[in-house]
């Protein structure tokens, strides 16, 4: 079917005729190419009926909801806990909890595209906080659910009742809702001392006010978790951080508050709480026309650029040259020239082997850079941060293979273990060149059993590394909780994880220019399997050597020949009675 689609004769003929017409016009009318190459494409009105983009209706400004939640008697409270609020929500939204419990937001599980294995936060390794087992009391600060707040006890998500679904974290409009750490996803409804015995307190929040002010999620709601992944603002992804809550156009041309003002779900469209687009199920090369919202085939992962822009999105004088790139190159590659552009740095390296140092006060050492961002924490090790980072690039077909906890892991020839690996190649016909963030880690490794080690870092028990800074105890607890054996020995190994870059789409005049790839040592220097004009490594060395060699010899030859001619001519001229030429 896709083949038929691509070679539809009528469409091809039409394109040919158009090309022929354009070529003829260009060749015959000098004025046709006198227009400057850098002429801006026609200014795009927000709603342009001639636009090649499918117009996404603008979000209504101001509430046009038919219900004012502050008037519902069910929501007057007072509420003593999150689940009590949920019960009130469910009295009207009867299906909401069931819907949520079927999604990755609840399950933290997804079926991997190629291998069909179960992956997800509870299954895979990572090189930020390393592993979730035994740490869920902390990790569930980013789960759309509540659970048993007793330290050390983790109730499987599948066993939690419907009232444990957390409606407020996504739907709160006050910005005051906050899950408390180490409370298994619960907000503080009484004053909590955290960490225990520290004299620092988390103040309780008023759930009834929040329950009465609910609505469609805003960027900040999604950002509560997705901006803070990896343990802090911007830490994990690099293309998702709090600068996107109210971004200027230069940072994100779609989400700009003074522009299109897209919310997350403008692209990650939802229905029945199924948010489209998943980190584990990417659509790296969507083809076959626009993936229009609401149409029949717009199921599953539709949060792609092509959803609105199609495969040939460029207009104006550069259109033909640019559109031929879409076959091999993801939109993001040119249109997200750098990530972490909003002023929030992202972690590029995290070295656990350096952890464990204490300051003169006996407390874990803290070193911060001039902007107040930690570059060393005794409990976590040393970090390298990056802002305005040029991504790495790779062929990518959307399939990511993750290393699950306990899997055999052997370092490659460079001594690095790739925790996740991207599928794709120049030749599989399903891949495009994508920008990625490469996160480098150094983390505990079992040199005898060849596996990355789960660690217990969060908590206030004796084994929690962030509390007592003892690797032996931390690893033992982590591996026990994960149900895995270990040799009892640990060392540190270098790891990488790779994160697709897809947010922070720059305005078109900030996109990469031709020469940033069409040159030596350009952005795509390391990409194999494709000919990039202007890149020296694609040259055939023999052609260059012989071609330049013979051209050089010819030039030398004619210069020598001409030199001898001139010399002989001068000699003849100086000889009296000689011919003059």
């Amino acid at each position, binding site marked *: 079917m896709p083949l038929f689609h691509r*070679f539809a004769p009528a469409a091809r003929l039409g*394109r040919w005729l158009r090309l022929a017409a354009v070529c003829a016009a260009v060749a015959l009318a000098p004025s046709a190419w006198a227009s400057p*190459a850098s002429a801006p494409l026609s200014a795009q009105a927000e709603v342009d009926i001639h636009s090649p983009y499918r117009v996404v209706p603008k979000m209504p400004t101001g509430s046009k909801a038919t219900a004012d939640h502050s008037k519902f008697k069910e929501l007057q409270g007072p509420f003593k806990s999150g689940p009590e609020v949920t019960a009130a929500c469910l009295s009207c939204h009867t299906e909401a909890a069931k819907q949520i419990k079927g999604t990755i937001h609840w399950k933290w599980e997804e079926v991997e595209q190629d291998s069909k294995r179960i992956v997800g936060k509870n299954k895979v390794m990572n090189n930020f906080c390393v592993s979730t087992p035994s740490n869920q009391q902390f990790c569930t600060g980013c789960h759309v659910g509540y659970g048993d707040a007793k330290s050390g006890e983790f109730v499987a998500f599948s066993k939690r009742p419907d009232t444990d679904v957390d409606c407020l974290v996504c739907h709160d409009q006050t910005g005051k809702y906050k899950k408390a750490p180490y409370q298994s996803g619960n907000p503080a409804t009484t004053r909590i001392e955290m960490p225990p015995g520290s004299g620092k307190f988390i103040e309780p929040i008023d759930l009834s006010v929040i329950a009465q002010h609910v609505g469609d999620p805003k960027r900040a709601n999604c950002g509560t978790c997705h901006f803070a992944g990896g343990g802090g603002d911007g830490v994990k992804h690099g293309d998702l951080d709090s600068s996107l809550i109210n971004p200027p156009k230069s940072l994100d041309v779609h989400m700009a508050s003074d522009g299109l003002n897209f919310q997350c779900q403008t692209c990650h469209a939802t229905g029945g709480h199924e948010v489209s687009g998943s980190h584990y199920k990417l659509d790296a090369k969507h083809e076959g026309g626009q993936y229009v919202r609401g149409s029949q085939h717009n199921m599953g992962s539709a949060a792609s650029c092509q959803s609105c822009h199609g495969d040939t999105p460029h207009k104006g004088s550069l259109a033909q040259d640019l559109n*031929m790139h879409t076959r091999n190159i993801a939109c993001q590659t040119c249109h997200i020239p750098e990530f972490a552009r909003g002023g929030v740095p992202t972690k590029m390296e995290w070295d656990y082997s350096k952890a464990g140092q204490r300051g003169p006060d006996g407390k874990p050492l803290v070193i911060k850079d001039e902007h107040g961002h930690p570059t060393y924490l005794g409990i976590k090790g040393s970090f390298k941060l990056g802002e305005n980072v040029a991504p790495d690039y790779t062929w990518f077909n959307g399939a990511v293979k993750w290393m699950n906890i306990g899997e055999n892991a052997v370092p490659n020839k460079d001594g690095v273990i790739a925790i996740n690996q991207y599928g794709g190649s120049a030749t599989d016909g399903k891949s495009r060149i994508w920008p990625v963030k490469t996160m480098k880690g150094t983390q505990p490794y079992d040199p005898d059993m060849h596996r990355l080690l789960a660690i217990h870092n969060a908590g206030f028990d004796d084994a929690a590394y962030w509390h007592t800074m003892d690797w032996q105890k931390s690893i033992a607890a982590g591996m026990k909780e994960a149900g895995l054996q270990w040799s009892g020995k640990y060392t540190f190994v270098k790891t990488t994880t790779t994160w697709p870059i897809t947010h922070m789409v720059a305005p078109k005049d900030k996109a990469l220019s031709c020469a940033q790839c069409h*040159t030596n040592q350009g952005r795509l220097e390391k990409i194999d399997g494709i000919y990039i004009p202007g890149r020296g490594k*694609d*040259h055939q060395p023999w052609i260059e050597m012989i071609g330049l060699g013979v*051209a050089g010899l*010819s030039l030398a030859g004619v210069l020598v020949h001409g030199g001898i001619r001139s010399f002989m001519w001068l000699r003849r001229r100086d000889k009296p009675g000689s011919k003059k030429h």
Partner: protein
Amino acid sequence: MSHKKHVILFKRFERFWHWSQAGLIILLMLSGFRIHGLYDLGMDFHTALRIHTVAAWSLVVLWVFAIFWHFTTGEWKQYIPTFDKLFLIARHYAFGIFRGEDHPYHQTAARKHNPLQRLAYLGVKLMINPIIWISGIWLIFFADWGAWPIWQQWGISLQVVAWAHTVGAYMMLIFFIVHVYLTTTGHTPMAHIMAMIRGYEDEPAHHHPRAKAAHKATENA
């Protein structure tokens, strides 16, 4: 000037064709080797690509007219190869030219290219141009043609086509260097070039005593 007998060697269209082709080929070489990555010269990649594409299409149009002209006028016969006097001409460029000897070949309108030129131009027309033309059009439409399974079956990738184009470009560059130099080998360094501009060549005076005499007469007058 009117008293001079000028044999028009190069007709008006021919001269137009020659010089516009020369200009386009120079543009194509400058922009093409920029695209190729040999140098930068402060030329933006996309500008170079633009110039290259437009110049290429212009050249194709010019070629279509030139081929038509060659066949309708019979001028194509000028390129029929011959080995007559070939050795003498080669010897002239290797030795005679240094001693100020006259060129062993005398141009007429019916035989305006010497045998060495005939071979060289035939080579350009039958080898260099087709390589550049075919690979070039292929490159322009590669985004469309590259998806056709038949090319993949034949193992023809963008890279192979680009390499062929590069081979053609270097051959053209080498031809260009030698060609430009050889234009200076007339009886004066500018003679051939002026002939290509005016259409006729001033015969060296000593060749034709009558012309010489006429010339002198003019000077004396």
